[in-house]
């Protein structure tokens, strides 16, 4: 019961704030709505008993990416600015395409009946996740973990290099 309430609450929040994110004309508000979407998603994970994922979602998305986005908004736009909306034609066509896609996907999903494996209630603990992250056995993820580490390092260096201000020659 309580779980259902939570689910519908979070679901409603996700959908509402998603729509607001892509429709508001104030850029920083869009970022805040995005933050709410992400936090609601984290709540969804909490209610699924996946605490670790929820904490990751909060740390990386809410604490990292959204802060980054807000920073860049602070750097590139002003409070009084309003976002330019796309021309009506573009909006209509995009909406049509999106609706068509959503309909198609929903039809496909709802036609298929998933059989949930309700027999087990997983007692995931963080040690298992940690162990399989660095294990190289069949169910180990050491290689993806390393690959992602290298990717992050490369992205970090790349971002610094790209964003660095080129030193201008002194006249």
């Amino acid at each position, binding site marked *: 019961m309580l779980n259902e309430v939570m689910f519908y609450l979070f679901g409603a929040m996700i959908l509402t704030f*998603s729509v607001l994110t*892509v429709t508001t004309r104030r*850029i920083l508000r869009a970022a805040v709505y995005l933050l709410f979407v992400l936090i609601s998603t984290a709540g969804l994970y909490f209610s699924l*008993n996946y605490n670790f994922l929820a904490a990751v979602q909060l740390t990386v998305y809410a604490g990292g990416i959204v802060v980054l*986005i807000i920073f860049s908004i602070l750097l590139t736009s002003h409070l009084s600015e309003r976002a330019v909306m796309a021309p009506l034609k573009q909006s209509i066509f995009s909406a049509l395409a999106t609706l068509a896609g959503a309909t198609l996907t929903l039809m496909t999903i709802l036609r298929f009946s*998933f059989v949930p494996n309700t027999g087990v209630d997983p007692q995931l603990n963080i040690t298992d996740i940690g162990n399989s992250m660095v294990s190289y056995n069949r*169910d180990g993820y050491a290689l993806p973990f390393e690959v992602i580490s290298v*990717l992050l390092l490369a992205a970090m260096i790349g971002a610094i290099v*790209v964003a660095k201000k080129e030193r201008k020659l002194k006249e």
Partner: protein
Amino acid sequence: MIQNIPLSYYLVISTFMFFIGIYGFLTRRNLITMLMSIELILNSVNINFVAFNRYLYPQQLQGHFFMLIVIAVAAAEAAVAIAIIINIYRNFKSIDVENVDEMKY
């Protein structure tokens, strides 16, 4: 505790989120808001992974790790994208996507 909520509900939410993200990507003119739309898309995919993991294979961790990898990729992508956006702003004095079409033919 999960019996009362069917898996497809999660999928419906994520589907809507996904297409809302796509709509945003196609209509927002500001590069940063386009980036935010992409984050929405990625997040909807994550919900799918987690829900499938929880409902269909609760004793395995594949969904977990896919989600972690998607998040890491999203973080990397956001960092690089914002670096690029700031550079674009520096050069064009604007981050409107319509102004950034120097790379055409």
